[in-house]
C-alpha cells in the first residue's frame, strides 16, 4: 500500500514522439500506461513502483480502427469497447467479437486497450489467440523508427514479449481475410468474466472446391505464451476436413500444449478440455462455411 502514495510523475503524452522523448529522458524507472487496468493492480500490489508513468491513451494516432484496401489498422490504444462497437471489425472478422465479450466486464472494456493486453503478454488473455488466427502484425515505434513484428514472433516467454525499453506498440495491422473465411472463439471459463481455463480460436479459409486452403488455430492458456497449434493446422490444410481429419488434427494439440498442474485442475483434465473445444470449434467453423453461398 505504500507505493500508492509514491509521488511519481504522471505524464499524459500528446503524441507518440512526445511519449518516446519523455521516456528517453527519464533516468529512473519508467512505465507506459494505456488503460491502466493491469498497471494499477501491479502498482497497488507493490510489484512495480515507477518514478514516471507515461500515459499513451490519449494519443490520436494510436486510436481507432482504419480500413484500407488490403488491411485494417487498429491503434494500440483503442479500447475493447471501441473495438466491440466497430463496424469494420464486425464486417471483416466478426468472430473477434466473441473474444471481446469474454473480457472481464463493461467497465474494464471501457478502459482496457488492445495494445495493453498484448504487451502484458499474459497467456490467459482472450484476444491474442484471435489475433494469431488473423496473422496480425505489430507496429512498434522507437526514436530510431518503426519496425514490424509478426504477432506469432512477439510472445517470447511467460509475460515476456519482444518489445524493448524505449519502444511503444503503436498499432496492430490485420490483413483482410480472403473470401470463404470464417472463425470462432470458444472458451471453458469457470465463471463469466474470469480467465479461461482453456480457450481456442479457429479460422478456416476454403477454396471453391471446399478444400481448406488455410487453417489457423490459436490457444488461450495452453502454455507460457499465446500460441498457434501449427501441426494441427497443417493437417487440416489441403483437405475437405472430414471428421477423421479433424480427429487427427486434434490429436496433434499435444505437440504444443504445455500445461502446468494446478491445484484446481489437473493437467489431464485441461488437455481433455482443449481436445473437446478444439474439435467442436473446427466443426462449428466448417458448418458456418458450409452455409456460405459461393
Amino acid at each position, binding site marked *: 500500500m505504500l507505493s*500508492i*502514495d509514491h509521488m*511519481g510523475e*504522471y505524464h499524459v503524452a500528446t503524441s507518440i514522439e512526445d511519449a518516446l522523448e519523455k521516456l528517453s529522458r527519464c533516468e529512473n524507472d519508467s512505465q507506459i500506461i494505456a488503460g*491502466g487496468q493491469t498497471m494499477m493492480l501491479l502498482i497497488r500490489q507493490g510489484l512495480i513502483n515507477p518514478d514516471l508513468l507515461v500515459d499513451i491513451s490519449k494519443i490520436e494516432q494510436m486510436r481507432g480502427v482504419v480500413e484500407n484496401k488490403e488491411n485494417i489498422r487498429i491503434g494500440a490504444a483503442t479500447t475493447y469497447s471501441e473495438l466491440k462497437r466497430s463496424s469494420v471489425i464486425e464486417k471483416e472478422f466478426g468472430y473477434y467479437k466473441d473474444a471481446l465479450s469474454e473480457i472481464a466486464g*463493461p*467497465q474494464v472494456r*471501457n*478502459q482496457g486497450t488492445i495494445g495493453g493486453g498484448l504487451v502484458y503478454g499474459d497467456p490467459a488473455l482472450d484476444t491474442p489467440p484471435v489475433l494469431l488466427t488473423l496473422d496480425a502484425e505489430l507496429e512498434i515505434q522507437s526514436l530510431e523508427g518503426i519496425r514490424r513484428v509478426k504477432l506469432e514472433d512477439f510472445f517470447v516467454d511467460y509475460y515476456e514479449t519482444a518489445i524493448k525499453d524505449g519502444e511503444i506498440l503503436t498499432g496492430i495491422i490485420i490483413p483482410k481475410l480472403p473470401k470463404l473465411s470464417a472463425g470462432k472463439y470458444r472458451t471453458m471459463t469457470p465463471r463469466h468474466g474470469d480467465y479461461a481455463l482453456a480457450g481456442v480460436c479457429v479460422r478456416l479459409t476454403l477454396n471453391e472446391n471446399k478444400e481448406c486452403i488455410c487453417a489457423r488455430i490459436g490457444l488461450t492458456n495452453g502454455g507460457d505464451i499465446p500460441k498457434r497449434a501449427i501441426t494441427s493446422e497443417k493437417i487440416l490444410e489441403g483437405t475437405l476436413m472430414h471428421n477423421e481429419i479433424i480427429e487427427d488434427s486434434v490429436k496433434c494439440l499435444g505437440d504444443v500444449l504445455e500445461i502446468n498442474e494446478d491445484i484446481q485442475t489437473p493437467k489431464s483434465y485441461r488437455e481433455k478440455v482443449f481436445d473437446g473445444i478444439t474439435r467442436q470449434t473446427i466443426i462449428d467453423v466448417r458448418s458456418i462455411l458450409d452455409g456460405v453461398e459461393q
Partner: protein
Amino acid sequence: MSGMKLDINNKIYTVNVSPYKSLRDVLRYDIGLTGTKESCDSGVCGVCTVLLEKGAVKSCLIPVGKVIGEKITTIEGLEIDGELSKMQQAFIDCFASQCGYCIPGFIMAATSLLEENNKPTIQEIREGLSGNLCRCTGYVKIIDAVKKAAESEI
C-alpha cells in the same frame, strides 16, 4: 503532484496527492464523496463504479493522474436539485436492494448502459451489469429496476 484539479459532478476540486493514487481513494478519503464504495480492490466487484466521458469505469483501477480535466460523475452527482435520477428512483420502486452496499456501483453501471442503449433487452441488461457483483438480491430485482428505468426513459 500538487494542485491537481478534478471535475467531479460539475464541481472543481483541487487535491494534493500522488497521481498514482486510485480515483476511488481520492474520492473517498481526500474529497469525502463516500457514495463510491470500496470492496475487492482488484477490479472485480464493481462497487467503485463511476462515470467518465467514455462510460462507466471501476475507479479502483484508475490512477487519478489519468482523469485530470475529464468530467467525472459519481453516485452523488445523479441527483439534480433534490430529485433522484430515474435509475435511482427505479431501484427504490423495485426494492432492488438488500444490504445496499453494491447498489451505487450497480446504479452507475446501469446509468452508463442506458446512455449507450436506451432500450436494452433483458440479456443486454445482464451483460451490461456483468462487471458488478451483489451477494444478497440474486439480481432479479436489480434487473427489474433497470428495465423499469429504461421503460420510463421512453
